[in-house]
């Protein structure tokens, strides 16, 4: 086993079949789905329904405590924290979702090919993902973002890039075992060409795993985005972004104004939590359907 990020694959070792809370699957999916789709809805409508403009300073209104007018209070330039918290998913989820999709598509394609063909270059692909994975992910992402310039699309590409090896490794490992299944041999005998075998017969069978991993990647990507912003290597001020809000709000905690950093942190945690729970539940449901339950 190589340097698989322990944090990024909390569930890798736990086959869904052993779920102690098989009865809890539905509850988890409901809660997770509620949080995850809530975040997605906010990503779409958040900036539209925000009661105040989320990026405009509001002189004289700085650091007001939470109240009926400003539910989550205001930050140090008078921006409404609530408006920013609900506008942020567009950035955070946007980055995370794009990065996840990008990593998933590229990683699955590469992993699929490396898992089906056992040649020297599929070995080479694995060595390269080893190489990327042996990097400390956060430091790698930070270095890449800062040297390429702090544009949002670069954050997306970098987060995708550091996650691709996970998919390559995961998909390849799954495919190596799937490839031994008779239905793959049957497909070869039917005369199905390799790429179509990968696409039609192999990839659909790792869908559950991909979805589960994608939900984890979503969370990781959101945390990574926020972490990058927190150290100043992510999106720019005054973009409404949870990590950035935590970073700017952090300084006012000691003078007693806790709200600018507490609320975005809660929002970020809930959103990540939702995706993790939802992805896990969905993967379990897919798994049980395959077993004919």
């Amino acid at each position, binding site marked *: 086993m190589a340097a698989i990020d322990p944090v990024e694959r909390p569930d890798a070792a736990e086959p869904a079949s052993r779920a102690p809370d098989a009865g809890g699957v539905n509850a988890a999916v409901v809660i997770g789905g509620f949080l995850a789709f809530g975040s997605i809805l906010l990503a779409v409508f958040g900036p539209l329904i925000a009661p105040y403009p989320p*990026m*405009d*300073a*509001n*002189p*004289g209104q*700085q*650091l007001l405590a939470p109240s009926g007018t400003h539910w989550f209070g205001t930050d*140090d*330039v*008078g921006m409404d924290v609530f408006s920013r918290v609900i506008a942020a998913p567009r950035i955070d989820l946007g980055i995370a979702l794009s990065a996840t999709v990008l990593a998933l598509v590229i990683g699955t394609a590469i992993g699929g090919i490396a898992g089906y063909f056992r040649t020297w270059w599929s070995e080479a692909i694995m060595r390269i993902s080893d190489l990327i994975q042996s990097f400390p992910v956060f430091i790698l992402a930070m270095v890449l973002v800062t040297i390429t310039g702090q544009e949002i699309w670069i954050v997306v590409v970098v987060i995708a890039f550091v996650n691709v090896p996970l998919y390559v490794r995961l998909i390849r490992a799954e495919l190596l075992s799937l490839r031994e299944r008779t239905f793959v041999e049957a497909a070869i005998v039917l005369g199905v060409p390799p790429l179509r075998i990968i696409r039609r017969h192999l990839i659909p069978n790792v869908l559950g795993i991909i979805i589960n991993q994608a939900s984890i990647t979503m969370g990781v990507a959101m945390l990574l985005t926020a972490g990058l912003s927190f150290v*100043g290597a992510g999106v*720019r*001020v*005054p973009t409404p972004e949870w990590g950035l809000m935590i970073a*700017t709000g*952090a*300084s*006012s*905690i*000691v*003078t*007693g104004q806790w709200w600018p950093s507490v609320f975005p942190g809660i929002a970020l945690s809930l959103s990540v939590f939702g995706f993790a729970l939802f992805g896990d539940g969905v993967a379990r449901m897919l798994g049980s359907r395959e077993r004919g339950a």
Partner: protein
Amino acid sequence: MKTRKQAHEALVRNFVQGRIDRRTFLGRLSALGVAVPMAGLLENVAHAQTPSDTLVIGAPATPTTLDPEYSSSPQDREVDCSTYDRFTQFKIVTDDNGNRVADLSSPPEPLLAESWEISDGGRKYTIKLREGVKSYFGNELTAEDIVWSWDRVFGLDSQGLFPLGVASIRSKEAYRAVSRYVVEITLDVPNPLLMTVQATPVPGAVFLDSTEVKRHVSEGDPWARKWLATNTASFGPYHAMSFTPGQQVEYVANPNYFRGKQGMARVLYREIPSSATRLTLLKAGAIDIAEDLVTRERRSLAGTEGVSITSVKGNLGVIYGVNNSVEPFTDKRVRQAVAYGLPIDDIINTVYFGDPSVRLFQGPVPDQYPGYPASWPYQPRNAEKAMELLSDAGQSSISFDLSYSTIYPEHEQIAQLIRTSLGEIGAEVRLQKLTPAKYQEQYYSHKAQSVIVQDAPFVVDGAYAEFLFFGPGKGAVGNWIDYVNPEAQDTIMQALGTADLDERNDLATAAARHIVEDVPWPMYLGIGFHMAMRTNVTGLAWRPHNLVHLVDLQKG
């Protein structure tokens, strides 16, 4: 024999029943070897006092270098003024508020220079050094040290060129050692400021212990750049004992210091990047001085026991400058529009909470300086006027970058207020938050499109300040916005070469009016000098460079 467990239970029982106090309890627990985790948890922060012989300063950053010739950040300069002594010093007086401040009207007082003579109509300075001045390494100060220090400036083509230039010392031929203790300086033009410039801890005014430094030169490094980057070799009161960049500088008193015993035996200059943390530590007594607190934090300290704040109106300013030689700011109307669009009052009220020391400088020099024009037609904010000017210039929708440093949290707030406010006049401002190193690089290479800078002209002289920020040529170190206006700049140079003070100041005022018309800086805000300290720290004095001199301080 009692088992360990029984002993422990008995101890806890005693403690719970109040038979022993906490300290005893912890002491005995640790004797039992079980206290360690608990002791840590129960340790009370309020008791974390600094040792009485050590002064701990919390600063936003450690210096980037200890080499005075390459100092750029305020932290770098703070090293210079605490370790290196100069020819002269400011006279310190007590002002109306009871603060110790530099007397800007008095002539400089002797420090390393015992006396000096000016002859040849102000062209020739003969400086007699104080005898018996010894460095930390025990070497005596001689004229050779002065010559070598200046040679180094010319040899490295480094920052000292600017102050020496202001003092009209333009080549190595201008100075020589006449004897062991006498230096002679010959100028092309008369210069009234030489000894005043030499009161300020700027590059070119600080003197190295050349005997020691020469031990650390090498073939590729004849000026010991490498060694001086992390070491000091001074005749001043303190010596940098160790330097851990990103963490701290440890100073010890120079035992050979000619003025006798310093107030503190040891000073720790700690990097504490977050101002909030500095505030916390100061409140807890874990540091003695917290530099660069934001206004909100200073306000929160009001009434806190054991903490006091020194505030002086001073000359420190926050500048919003635009690069005059980069689109769209090459057009004067665009710069004027930006000046009309800035929310100065909002900045003062929102960022500085209406602090009485914060005010708009109505001109390109601080309000106490000779040459201050006291006229600024661009405020109060006038959005219509701004948009009108922009459309006149054919630039009704512009976009540009605004760079600021991570060091000052308040600059980010200012940047955001500027962004929102200029957005309303049709200008899209992209904020660029830069680390000190990147910020400096932009600043040095004149690359920033527009930038927020916190600075003060060290020499209280209008002509000097104008030359520093708006002068022609590379001698004008502070002209990072590439201001060009031959008429104004000629006036500045004329003022700089004028020895008669009234005439000099009139010329400076004239130049200032030119500059106001051109608006190279749409905003120049005086923000005052503020220092939060434990009440037992005394002696702090304000000087025009707004830096802490360790030699002033003692702990009661």
